[in-house]
């Protein structure tokens, strides 16, 4: 499998996915 960090789009999407995951973790923790 290709490393997503090899492309700028892959890097950007990885950052967005991580943001979404962490956002939900914090939202859940704050409930």
């Amino acid at each position, binding site marked *: 499998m290709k490393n997503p960090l090899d492309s700028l789009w892959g890097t950007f999407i*990885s950052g*967005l996915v*991580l*943001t979404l995951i*962490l*956002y939900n973790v*914090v939202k859940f*923790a*704050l409930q």
Partner: protein
Amino acid sequence: MEFIQLGIGRWLHILSGVMWIGLLYYFNFVQAPALAEAGKDGTGAGITKHVAPRALFWFRWAAVATWLMGAMLLGGNFFKAFFFLDRAFYAIGLGAWLGTIMIFNVWVLIWPNQQKILGMKPASDEEKAKARRTAFLASRTNTALSIPMLFFMAAAGHQGTFFG
């Protein structure tokens, strides 16, 4: 005292943070693709000799200034934030962790390997190739991490708006 810690501290945190992340984006969005192009016709020396060392200087020291100003801003709440001991500091705690991982990458993975790549430290061709890959991936990791880091920095003072 509060003006210096929370006022001037916040201003300098943002100022140095813009320089750090601005240069990180310069490396990823401008310099790396430019060097790849320049490698084809052998014109990359100007960048590696004159631009990259200067950019790296401001990049790594801006990272230090950003982290220190962030720690000063947290002040007595530093441990509450870093160890998630208080709900009010969840967002900034996560942002601070992401920033801390990023400064680790700058000083432990990017800078020592860039010194080998740019010829500031002796390295064989094989070591240089390995250093290039490690520095590249650490830099790309930081670019990816900057996205949630900035989200949680923005959310820190507005948890109600961001998390309901």
